[in-house]
């Protein structure tokens, strides 16, 4: 009855007042009755006595009134809680161990779950975010799995796909923002006008972009994020219409986004219109993926319908495309995928793996606690039997056990919340904010509620075996006491031993899993990046179009920068390139070898393509295989030359002879004058990561012939290179005071950072296994220690009959060994299954390498047996006289 329950809660809220009122009301009754009796002639003392007697037992009446108010279950719960709390206070050692175990295990799970929740579960902050999709072009046979989308894609599809209610494109970039002398480089996003309506969340003040503003030259508008508006403009309420300088151009602020606006992992502070010229929207650019497409599924439309419509639309527009054949050979398709799933696909397996590890830890901790609780309960068998004998119901025995374990779990859960809050801070050190959506990881009420609910579930689960055993014991034993031979005693012992075996097996799996991740990381770290990373610094520069409109000016500024940086003390070589290894960007483009006749169906291939200036190859430390490196002078020569890497050379000239060959930039042969002559072959470098599936091939053009506005500077020094960073920044500002240097990192840092997705899970797994080892040791110690105490009389008897201490010790150690052997056997099986399931995230590591197996057995065996030495030793030191005289 909900009304009644509501009334009960209201009474509970003002419980003291309720009790006082009830007492006052009954006192009043008795007094009035007494007065009436006195009036009718009864002597006062006799009247008071009679009034109280006729009223009946005050306590009973009150209890009945409380029950009438539905307070009974709450009062019972409170009594159980008080009793449980008293028991826990009486055994501080057990309570501390249990709480520490729970805090660690729940905290670890909460920490990892915070990440899983933010990255995989929590809806994106947009209305009906599940209807948002991403559409991207893929050319699998050209080894270009994701090329984003092109502007023609957007303009051709807009309004043509019924399954989409909205369609938009965006492009991430950086821009120099601010007045001369106080500029900073900021991430910006250029978006089509319907970007915000597709997401379903737009400016709170002002307006979105107009179609007019997407025309090149007319794009003088900007929409600011709440963060930029508050931090840089002091939350100026009259900001609309105010001008800000972006890349040297004055733009008008037309809108402010709400504070909650956060698009995927974007750090963007300013949104600009994605402006383009008619040329950029022409069908020839259909396969130049320079942007990303998002769309909102129309009501009732499915992903499959959208995919079918996109496929049909692609087929229709490609009919007259001269490149259609080439594109089809590359396996071209446009894929429609859920926006969020696509964004986090790469990290999903690793995250789930780490969460599984944390759950294993929790399982080990829980098994440990169940065993400790069982041992505790064994000590209370008589007490429970007495309670049942004097009328405690079965329900009462069960609820008593559950209340105790739930109380433990709740306190442990609260401690776990604290541990989790700390853990989430720790995650920042492990690079969690660099995960997709990683910056959304927060510790909030939702997480706290889930954690506490989890703690209650754990608490009930912990209490169930104890409750079961208590009922069984009480039924079997009555008041006889726990004799060693009873079936209930044996069942309890079997249960404890089974739990120890399970605990050892789980710890084994966790330890082996951590070992696999470690081995895999070690294997990856031995992979050579292809260059000499020591003492090399690299950073990104974006050269504004306004200051550097063409190739000549771009080349000139790069040359001036090279000279200025080269003058810094300690600098050995300075180079520039449009991309550096492990920069996080791994775009590829096509290149065509002159005279190469593709076999029918041979797909075009995407190569890593770099334009390099200065002394790039020496600065980064490439190895030369044939010919020569490109030099600064190649940029000024009319004759076009290039350098390719070994993978490129092997692809076309497997038997050698690459030098002197001619290569065109792009997917087809052009004018003979446009060809680049190969003058050198260098060793391959790792672009996307130390682990790449297959050799991709790379080509290096002189910067003067293929200039770009976004470049990386690379400096090799004879000194520790970090100390050079401030001087380099100043040197760049001497050349152009408006140029900030971005993403300045040593190449060694870039390598380390590229491994974060492997290192962090491995570190977490090691941490988890460490805790698991500790828990296993505590669990084994606890159970064996109890066994020794319980069998003290038997040991004493055997020793009195002539058993030597070594025999007694051996008896307990052999019990430990049997449990260890069973746990290990199960663990090996589990570890092998786990290793197989983990293959996707491992690098060149078999499911269960023999050395790892041996090491895991050794570590776990040592820890478990070490935990048994003390109890076994205590057994051996038993004095027969004392043991037999007890009780």
């Amino acid at each position, binding site marked *: 009855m909900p009304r009644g329950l509501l009334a009960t809660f209201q009474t509970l809220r003002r419980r003291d007042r309720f009790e006082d009122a009830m007492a006052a009301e009954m006192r*009043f009754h008795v007094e009035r009755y007494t007065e009436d009796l006195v009036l009718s002639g009864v002597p006062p003392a006799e009247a008071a006595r009679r009034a109280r007697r006729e009223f009946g037992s005050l306590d009973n009446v009150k209890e*009945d009134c409380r029950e009438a108010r539905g307070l009974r279950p709450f009062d019972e719960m409170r009594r159980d809680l008080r009793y449980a709390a008293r028991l826990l206070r009486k055994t501080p050692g057990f309570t501390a161990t249990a709480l520490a175990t729970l805090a660690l295990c729940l905290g670890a799970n909460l920490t990892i779950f915070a990440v899983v929740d933010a990255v995989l579960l929590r809806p994106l902050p947009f209305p009906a975010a599940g209807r948002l999709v991403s559409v991207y072009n893929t050319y699998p046979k050209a080894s270009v799995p994701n090329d984003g989308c092109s502007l023609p894609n957007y303009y051709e599809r807009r309004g043509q796909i019924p399954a989409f209610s909205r369609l938009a494109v965006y492009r991430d970039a950086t821009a120099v923002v601010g007045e001369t002398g106080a500029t900073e480089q900021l991430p910006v996003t250029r978006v089509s006008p319907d970007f915000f309506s597709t997401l379903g969340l737009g400016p709170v003040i002002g307006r979105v972009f107009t179609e007019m503003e997407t025309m090149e030259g007319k794009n003088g508008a900007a929409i600011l994020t709440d963060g930029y508006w508050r931090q840089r403009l002091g939350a100026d309420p009259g900001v609309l219409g105010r001008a800000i300088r972006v890349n040297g151009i004055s733009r008008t602020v037309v809108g402010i986004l709400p504070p909650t606006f956060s698009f995927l992992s974007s750090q963007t502070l300013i949104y600009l219109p994605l402006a383009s010229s008619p040329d950029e929207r022409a069908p020839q650019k259909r396969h130049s993926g320079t942007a990303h497409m998002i769309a909102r599924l129309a009501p009732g439309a499915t992903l499959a319908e959208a995919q079918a419509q996109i496929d049909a639309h692609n087929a229709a527009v490609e009919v007259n495309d001269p490149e259609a054949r080439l594109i089809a050979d590359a396996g071209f398709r446009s894929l429609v995928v859920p926006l969020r799933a696509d964004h986090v696909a790469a990290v999903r397996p690793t995250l789930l793996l780490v969460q599984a590890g944390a759950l294993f830890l929790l399982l080990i901790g829980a098994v440990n606690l169940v065993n400790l609780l069982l041992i505790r309960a064994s000590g209370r068998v008589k007490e429970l039997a007495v309670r049942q004998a004097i009328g405690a119901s079965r329900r009462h025995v069960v609820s008593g056990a559950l209340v105790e374990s739930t109380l433990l779990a709740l306190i442990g859960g609260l401690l776990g919340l604290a541990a989790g809050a700390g853990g989430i801070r720790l995650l920042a050190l492990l690079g969690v904010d660099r995960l997709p959506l990683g910056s959304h990881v927060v510790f909030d009420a939702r997480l706290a509620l889930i954690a506490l609910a989890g703690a209650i579930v754990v608490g009930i689960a912990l209490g169930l075996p104890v409750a079961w055993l208590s009922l069984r014991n009480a039924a079997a034993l009555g008041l006889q006491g726990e004799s060693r031979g009873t079936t209930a005693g044996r069942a309890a012992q079997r249960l404890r031993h089974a739990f120890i075996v399970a605990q050892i097996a789980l710890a084994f799996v966790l330890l082996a899993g951590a070992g696999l991740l470690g081995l895999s990381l070690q294997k990856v770290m031995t992979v050579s990046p292809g260059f000499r990373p020591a003492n090399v610094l690299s950073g990104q520069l974006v050269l504004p179009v306004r200051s550097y409109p063409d190739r000549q000016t771009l080349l000139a500024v790069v040359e001036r920068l090279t000279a200025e940086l080269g003058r810094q003390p300690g600098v050995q070589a300075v180079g520039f390139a449009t991309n550096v290894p492990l920069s996080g960007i791994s775009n590829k483009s096509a290149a065509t070898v002159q005279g190469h006749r593709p076999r029918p169906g041979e797909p075009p291939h995407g190569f890593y393509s770099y334009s390099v200036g200065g002394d790039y190859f020496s600065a980064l430390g490439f190895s030369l295989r044939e010919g020569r490196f490109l030099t600064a002078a190649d940029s000024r020569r009319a004759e076009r030359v290039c350098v390719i890497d070994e993978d490129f050379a092997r692809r076309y000239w497997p038997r050698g002879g690459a030098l002197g060959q001619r290569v065109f930039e792009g997917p087809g042969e052009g004018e003979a004058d446009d060809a680049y002559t190969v003058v050198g072959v260098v060793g391959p470098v790792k672009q996307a990561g130390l682990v790449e599936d297959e050799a991709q091939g790379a080509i290096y053009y002189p910067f003067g012939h293929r200039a770009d506005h976004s470049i990386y500077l690379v400096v090799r020094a004879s000194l520790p290179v970090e100390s050079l960073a401030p001087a380099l920044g100043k040197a760049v500002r001497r050349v152009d005071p408006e140029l900030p240097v971005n993403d300045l990192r040593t190449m060694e840092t870039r390598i380390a950072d590229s491994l974060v997705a492997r290192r962090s899970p491995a570190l977490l797994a090691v941490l988890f296994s460490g805790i698991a080892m500790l828990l296993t040791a505590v669990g084994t110690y606890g159970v064996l220690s109890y066994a020794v105490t319980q069998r003290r009389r038997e040991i004493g008897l055997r020793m009195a009959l002539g058993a030597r201490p070594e025999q007694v010790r051996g008896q307990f150690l052999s019990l430990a060994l049997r449990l260890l052997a069973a746990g290990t056997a199960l663990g090996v099986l589990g570890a092998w299954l786990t290793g197989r399931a983990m293959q996707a995230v491992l690098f060149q590591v078999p499911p269960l390498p023999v050395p790892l197996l041996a090491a895991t057995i050794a570590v776990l065996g040592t820890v478990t047996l070490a935990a048994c030495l003390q109890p076994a030793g205590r057994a051996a030191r038993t004095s027969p006289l004392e043991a037999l005289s007890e009780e």
Partner: protein
Amino acid sequence: MSKTADLLPGTLDMLILKAVSLKPLHGYGVLLRIRQISGDALDIPQGSLYPALYRLEHQGLIVAEWGQSENNRKAKYYTLSEAGRRRLEEETAGWNRLASAIAAALSAEPEEA
């Protein structure tokens, strides 16, 4: 006291509702009033009065309020709520039907059987 009758199960609630329907009463007053309106025929065990009052209040059939008693002491007064009034009507009608049916059955003459 031999004139007093034992209460039938379930009738205490009805009597309490009836008693407080006439005017607001404190617990002791309810006891006196039931005794009075039944012509001293019904005597309620004092201990079972309060659990019944608390149950009726819990069900929202009566409402309690602190007030001044006849001799200026604080006492808890009960009044009938709207829901209580409806319940009293239902129970009264139900009781009357039952009572007349039983009376009719008990007054049946042998020749009419």
